[in-house]
């Protein structure tokens, strides 16, 4: 990411509806799939540590490990969390086979410097048999916008591409679905109409939102989580959330 984006991310992620919603999906998944694993959780591409801080609060006593390629991000993460931190590449993890009960990687494999297939093979290697990988990826290639350039996204993805990538790395996909669907019309308007018209420097969408709007968007996300829990699966949405398992044998 651009250096300035780390500062923006660090400042924004703990109070921005999008991160709250993404992290809530991760927490629900870990609670459901990896609550009883004695092995640590790896945040592969932990950035400025917002998710690790939330996991620490949600799962007290759970061993948490975060890696990131960017030193500036890790320094910020260290101020937020007591998780173990190392600077490393997701494509070449400095951990032994079967060391983790769960691997989480939020909007990392889409990064233009990352080889996603190699990273997924590494996640598979470091997971214990039966362990869970949880991914978030930006959805819909045609939605590519200034935001993606600023955070160095190589690409945005289709559901079937992510399922195929997971299968190629040896995972069984448990669930892969779009989310951030209810706000999708607003996202389209912002990305395709308003942002291209705006003057000034091109920015990511990571920016503070006025508190009343943020509360409103959080409420929309809560409704959407209820819909997802009820089994509703939509074919559109800003992100793809995927949960897959390393087969037990």
């Amino acid at each position, binding site marked *: 990411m651009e250096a300035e984006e780390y500062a923006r991310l660090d400042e924004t992620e703990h109070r921005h509806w999008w991160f709250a919603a993404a992290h809530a999906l991760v927490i629900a998944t870990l609670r459901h799939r990896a609550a009883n694993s004695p092995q640590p959780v790896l945040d592969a591409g932990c950035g400025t540590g917002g998710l690790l801080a939330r996991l620490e609060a949600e799962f007290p006593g759970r061993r948490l490990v975060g890696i990131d390629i960017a*030193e500036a991000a890790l320094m910020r993460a260290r101020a937020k969390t007591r998780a*173990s931190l*190392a*600077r490393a590449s997701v494509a*070449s993890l*400095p951990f032994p086979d079967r060391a983790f009960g769960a691997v989480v990687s939020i909007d990392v494999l889409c990064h233009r410097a990352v080889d996603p297939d190699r990273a997924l093979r590494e996640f598979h290697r470091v997971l214990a048999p039966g362990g869970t990988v949880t991914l978030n990826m930006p959805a819909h290639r045609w939605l590519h916008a200034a935001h993606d350039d600023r955070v160095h996204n190589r690409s945005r993805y289709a559901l079937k591409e992510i399922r195929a990538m997971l299968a190629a790395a040896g995972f069984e996909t448990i669930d892969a679905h779009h989310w951030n669907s209810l706000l999708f019309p607003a996202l389209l308007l912002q990305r395709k109409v308003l942002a291209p018209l705006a003057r000034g420097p091109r920015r990511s969408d990571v920016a503070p939102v006025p508190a009343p709007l943020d509360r409103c968007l959080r409420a929309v996300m809560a409704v959407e989580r209820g819909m997802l829990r009820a089994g509703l699966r939509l074919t559109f949405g800003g992100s793809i959330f995927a949960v897959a398992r390393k087969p037990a044998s």
Partner: protein
Amino acid sequence: MNEQSVPSGIDPKLLEILVCPLTKQALRYDREHQELVSAAAGLAFPIRDGIPIMLVDEARRLDDAASTTRPEGAAQ
């Protein structure tokens, strides 16, 4: 001893699970030089501000003694 006397000390729980990113072999912790040494890969990974840098591009080659500034008599 206070905590400030080891400002760059590495998290011991992390040390337990780190391996060489290249060979996936065990590492030797060189406390004095704050490095994690992979004998198999011939690389020493620096620890800066307590954070191990497990990137091959940032590692010191073990045959390249000139690239490090070691205190007198500190070599092992």
